[in-house]
């Protein structure tokens, strides 16, 4: 049975803030900071947007592209995020209701820092592959948090993408998935804390780079492939610099990663990052294109995927929903004060 992506949808809020505007408030060289991180602007959710609305927008875009799929045939909905609006009460049930998949189905929220979305795809692959469900929905979405003045404030943004996993009319076959997981505490947020803490430079070599390169090499070994066998590659993108460097380390060219690298223009969408990068690739992909995917979640782990776009992509109704380039048009730039209000950083008394 060929399990893979039957449909996908994506959403990014329209508001943006630039690093120089953030730096202006904190008295640092924001433009230089942005250049160092390779982030030129980041998305900001409006006050009435959260992971539920972002996940719902993405899921509805996904369903619009497969009008022949009966939402009642969706047997599972998983939403991966580290900014679920509720600590107790699922996001996934709200999304499932919004796409009319309820009630004969299962749902759960997932959390694995920035890779909860790809973990959801793996779970859905298992359920579809075993015959337990016909379709599964896996969503990665975040309205990520960066403490005021912290380095994360220049990158933490909002967005998400949704994937319908099945075995019929698969537009992109997932040839293989595997993971590399360790207990590596590089980034965390404890219950009740508003902003995450991180281990500074520890988040680099022993965390991001070790896990992504290990998972990637495991995939090359498992599939007997080399970087040049792939049309596109997408890596987790907490900033623009890390994925660019890891791609070079692994032997991929700038041309292979360009399409899937959205962080320079929208920031780090955490659980949404790899799902959005993959969505941007699928917006352009042609039958036969092969895609190499490695996500990364702090804590830590990487999920790798080897994907081949199928002939079904030619009949696929991609234009039934806006492609990401369209979604990312008509942006509105915010000053820091409005951004602080939108993000709820101003604590009201009483």
């Amino acid at each position: 049975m060929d399990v893979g992506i039957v449909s996908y949808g994506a959403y990014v809020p329209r508001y943006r803030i630039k690093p120089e505007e953030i730096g202006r408030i904190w008295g640092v060289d924001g433009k230089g900071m942005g250049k160092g991180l390779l982030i030129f602007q980041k998305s900001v959710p409006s006050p009435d947007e959260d992971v539920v609305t972002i996940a719902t927008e993405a899921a509805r875009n996904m369903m619009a592209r497969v009008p022949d799929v009966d939402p009642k045939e969706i047997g599972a909905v998983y939403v991966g995020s580290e900014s679920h609006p509720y600590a107790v009460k699922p996001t996934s049930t709200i999304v499932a209701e919004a796409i009319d998949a309820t009630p004969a189905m299962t749902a759960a929220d997932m959390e694995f820092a920035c890779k909860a979305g790809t973990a959801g795809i793996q779970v859905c692959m298992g359920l579809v592959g075993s015959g337990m469900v016909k379709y599964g929905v896996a969503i990665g979405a975040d309205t990520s948090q960066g403490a005021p003045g912290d380095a994360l404030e220049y990158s933490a943004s909002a967005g998400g993408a949704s994937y319908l996993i099945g075995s019929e009319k698969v537009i992109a076959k997932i040839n293989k998935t595997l993971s590399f997981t360790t207990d590596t505490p590089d980034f965390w947020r404890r219950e009740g804390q508003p902003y995450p803490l991180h281990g500074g430079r520890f988040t680099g070599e022993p965390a991001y780079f070790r896990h992504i390169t290990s998972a990637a090499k495991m995939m090359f070994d498992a599939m007997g492939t080399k970087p040049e066998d792939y049309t596109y590659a997408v890596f987790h993108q907490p900033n623009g610099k890390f994925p660019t460097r890891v791609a070079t380390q692994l032997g991929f060219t700038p041309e292979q990663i360009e399409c899937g690298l959205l962080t320079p223009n929208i920031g780090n969408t955490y659980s949404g990052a790899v799902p959005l990068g993959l969505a941007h690739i699928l917006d352009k992909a042609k039958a036969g294109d092969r895609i190499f995917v490695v996500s990364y979640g702090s804590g830590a782990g990487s999920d790798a995927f080897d994907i081949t776009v199928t002939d079904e992509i030619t009949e696929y109704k991609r234009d039934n929903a806006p492609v990401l380039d369209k979604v990312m048009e008509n942006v509105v730039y915010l000053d820091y004060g409005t951004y602080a209000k939108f993000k709820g950083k101003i604590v009201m008394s009483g």
Partner: protein
Amino acid sequence: MRDVAIVGIGATQFGELWNNSFRSLGIEAGSRAIEDANLSGDEIDALYIGNMSAGRFISQQHIDALIADYSGMATNHIPATRVEAGGASGGVAFREAVIAVASGLHHTVMVGGAEKMTDLDDASINSVMDATADAEWEAGMGLTLTSLYAIIARRMMFEGTVTREGIASVAVNSHFHGALNPGAQFRKAIPIDTVLKSGPVAEPLGVFDCAPITDGAAAVILCPLEDAKKYTDKYVKVSATSQASDTLALFQRPDITTFEATRAAAKRAYEMAGITARDINVAEIHDDYTVSGIMALQDLGFYKKGEAGNAFLNGETHFDAGKVAINTSGGLKARGYPVGASGVAQIVEITEQLRGTADKRQVKNAKYGLAQSVGGTGSAVTVSILEAI
């Protein structure tokens, strides 16, 4: 007092060593030194360890017992002593060990230096470093160690004894040598523009004017000079080791562009060794900040006031320039600065140079080598002189 020799040296790689604990670093450096000296751990009868702040970096006090235990010497019940003197911790530990052997109280002594810094976040590390200044009158008022050195740099530039380029060239020299040292944290030569254009920390000092945060350890083994040949043919003589103090706070000094403690320690060391600054072929100096390197060359008597900047700029400090070679290991700036280890690591480098085993950065025919280790803003300084045999 009897003459003392260095019969064994060992050091770990310096860097962000995420997979190494404090104790594993100490064990690695110590066992390398023991192996280098061709002796067994049972022959060591005293242990000294330079460590600045394991209490705050890794929440471990009682470093003396820890090191004795994990080096397998605790069951021999030898005395183990932890020494702290800010950035000069390793230098002072070395001097205490030399005194112990010279006095006749101990025969074969290991002196180690170790620091594990990267378990803490950057802001906390800076706070630990700032505690080497005066906590009440300096750090408590918001002055960081970097800003104190920035004040020194500003004053020197104002007085016209050095240019910004002269100061920056200290880092260029350290990186030039770091590129030749496989054990260095940064093994890459840099042009002066990299320093001048680096992000400001405390102006005029930028990121590249400051030594990095580093994990690492170093160790040396001492014994009486007369017994050195029993262990090895490649030993060097400790010709002098001296130490001087000064006010804890910088503002209490009449002149902040010189470290009187360095001058005093150097004077005593040259007298003890029976030589002058002109006899030194190679020196490891405490370049925790670039401007410290300028002061060191002048206070140690290698150059007159106002001349050190040009010496660095012109490359006179390179290992192959034929003058006194400065920081051939890469110094604190490029080899790395695991604080308590640095004073001992300097002794390791000078020993390599005098033994002729410094490989690509070997100074030709080096006879005398000097190591200068500094705590805070020159509040504690050690100067040691080693001699090739």
